[in-house]
């Protein structure tokens, strides 16, 4: 069942949802990266919660005008408008009052969401019929995904991706160094609004698939996971998009393969799973890699110190040092140095002496800055520089 789900053979509805969820994950991951590196992740939470009153008001407006209260484009426009108002409120509160951004976000989030819930309660007793279904926007509801919904998602997603491509340089610059951005002529205020506007677009487009409560997860988790794989923002954006897309795809497929599995939460769980794997196992930056690197470094330091002690005839006290040196074949079981050990100890001592001289010589300031107790000087200087330096070691040789 799962295999069929993953290869899109479970029928029209499941395929539609899977493709839609993949597109959503892809665009959310890309946009979310800029929110994350710009430290604006929580603003997206305010945006998503601020959509609720707009949905309610749009419903009421459409019913009053005699139409079908649940026409999706109308509801989405309503949600976008109220989310935009919420965003402006956060912006205004932060820039014009003494409130910090997180306080502003908390205020807007709760007030708008509360207003939305009140509206939903009012709507439920409206004599307008057919109102059930608005609460689906809270956690998403993919069983009822129609062709038109998928089209909206695809078009919206494509527009957002296009804008991300167009604006990635100013957005990255503003997130990194806003003062420099202003100085070089970037309109910081407009770029930030654009960034938040993209987040708003993704939120609105993703309401049906994952719902407003979970959309923030789809924006942030792929970006955070991607951060473990690259140190360059363009790559992070691409990887985050990929992770988001995979989460959308796998999550939708899994939720379609068994009864009673809600799509939105499963997608988020997939994203989290990828994040956990990245956190633990990403090369260079994952917890495991850092741990191993640290152990290796610690071993090198111990061995170096042990060799120096050996070369200077001092006893080695630390058990870890002795164990490591024994394992490297530098000392015998009884603590006496082996031939290899003696040779390496002599080299270590020579290296240490060379560094001493170099660091005292003002002509070699650049090189001196690279002293870290471990790197041999041969790697830093050229051979002729080394020869010249060695002459100072043997004063009689000049």
């Amino acid at each position, binding site marked *: 069942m799962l295999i069929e789900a993953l290869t899109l053979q*479970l*029928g*029209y*509805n*499941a395929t*539609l*949802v899977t493709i839609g969820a993949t597109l959503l994950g892809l665009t959310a991951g890309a946009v979310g990266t800029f929110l994350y590196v710009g430290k604006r992740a929580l603003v997206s939470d305010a945006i998503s919660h601020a959509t609720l009153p707009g949905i309610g008001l749009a419903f009421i407006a459409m019913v009053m005008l005699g139409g079908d209260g*649940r026409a999706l484009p109308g509801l989405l426009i309503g949600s976008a408008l109220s989310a935009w108002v919420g965003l402006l409120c956060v912006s205004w509160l932060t820039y014009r009052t003494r409130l910090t951004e997180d306080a502003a976000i908390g205020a807007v989030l709760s007030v708008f969401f509360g207003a939305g819930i009140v509206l939903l*309660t009012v709507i*439920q*007793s409206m*004599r*307008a*019929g*057919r*109102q*059930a*279904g608005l*609460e*689906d926007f809270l*956690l998403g*509801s*993919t*069983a*009822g*995904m*129609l*062709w038109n919904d998928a089209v909206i998602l695809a078009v919206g997603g494509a527009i957002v991706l296009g804008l991300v491509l167009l604006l990635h340089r100013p957005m990255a610059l503003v997130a990194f160094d806003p003062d420099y951005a202003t100085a070089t002529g970037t309109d910081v205020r407009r770029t930030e609004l654009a960034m938040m506007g993209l987040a708003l677009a993704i939120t609105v487009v993703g309401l049906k698939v994952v719902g407003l409560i979970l959309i923030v997860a789809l924006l942030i988790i792929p970006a955070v996971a991607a951060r473990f794989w690259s140190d360059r923002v363009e790559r992070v954006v691409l990887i985050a998009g990929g992770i988001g897309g995979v989460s959308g795809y796998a999550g*939708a497929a899994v*939720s*379609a*393969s*068994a*009864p*009673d*599995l*809600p*799509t939105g939460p499963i997608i988020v769980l997939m994203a989290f799973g990828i994040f956990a794997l990245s956190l633990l196992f990403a090369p260079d930056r994952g917890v495991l890699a850092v741990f191993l690197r640290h152990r290796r470094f610690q071993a090198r330091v111990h061995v170096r110190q042990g060799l120096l002690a050996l070369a200077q005839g001092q006893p080695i006290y630390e058990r870890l040092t002795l164990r490591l040196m024994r394992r490297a074949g530098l000392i015998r079981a009884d603590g006496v140095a082996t031939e290899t050990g003696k040779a390496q100890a002599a080299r270590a001592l020579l290296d240490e002496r060379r560094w001493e001289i170099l660091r005292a010589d003002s002509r070699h300031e650049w090189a001196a800055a690279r002293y870290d107790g471990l790197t041999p000087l041969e790697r830093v200087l050229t051979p002729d520089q080394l020869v010249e330096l060695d002459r100072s070691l043997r004063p009689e040789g000049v």
Partner: protein
Amino acid sequence: MTLSRRHLLKLSAALPLAAAAPAFAATDKLSVVATTGMIADAAMIVGGDLVEVQTLMGPGVDPHAYRQTRTDIVAMNRADLVLWHGLYLEAQMEELLLELAEKKPVVAVGEAVPQDKLIAHEDYDGRFDPHVWMVPALWGDVVRGVQAAMTEVAPDQAEMFEANATAYIAEIERLGAYTKDALTTVPTEARVLLTAHDAFGYFGSDYGFEVMGIQGISTESEAGLDRIAELVDLLVERDIGAVFVETSVSDRNIKALIEGAAAKGHDVKIGGELYSDAMGEPGTYEGTYLGMIDHNVTTIAGALGGNVPSGGMDGKLSAGG
């Protein structure tokens, strides 16, 4: 006559007593609050001029999801009698109603149906399918329950209630006969009823229909994609021509089902809109219990290939249902 101070004092002592006199000294009608429209309908007919009935859930309202408002609570507190359905239909209000039952007459009239006639819930022990109004015979039991509740609160009117109830049940029985006749005209292989949620279980068991809903017995359960796929396969396999939307439930899932079947080359139409958990607009025929069931039966039979008068049992259905 001038008011001496002693008279004034006596008068002022009597005022609080006057104010504390029972509320229905002002009007002598029994004030009844009913949760669903169907119960309110029954209450109005059984009680006649002796009752004033207020409904909490109007047309198009989903009782599985309905949460009471402050106004509702005030109304229920002021009423002489509160009638609700029970059988876990008003799931969100259950706690409040049970609490209220300790202070005043609160009766779950749906539970007047004997248990052996109820369909047990598939997944939950001790729970039953609450949609008993779909079958007129069962609803007759509920009407008797309403009568009993009213008699309890206003025993001196017992005769009136008995007469009204009996007359009404005769109408309901006539509706039951019409239902049976109408549905037997549907060809056997077409007797599949697919709706947005499992509201028609009793309908199925009593009239030999196979009944399926996208969502479960309660609309609070989310429909899974898996279920949609399952139903699409069924639609195609059994060559079913019509599915039905409901007035109190979103029609998105049904539309998705239709698209799914279309992708497999099978053309399914919406056979009509059914009143599943709520009646039609008040003031119309469909806004009464009789009209609601009449409409449902006529629409279903008509859409599935049966032979029924388009005006329903008495020709009272509005065109297009």
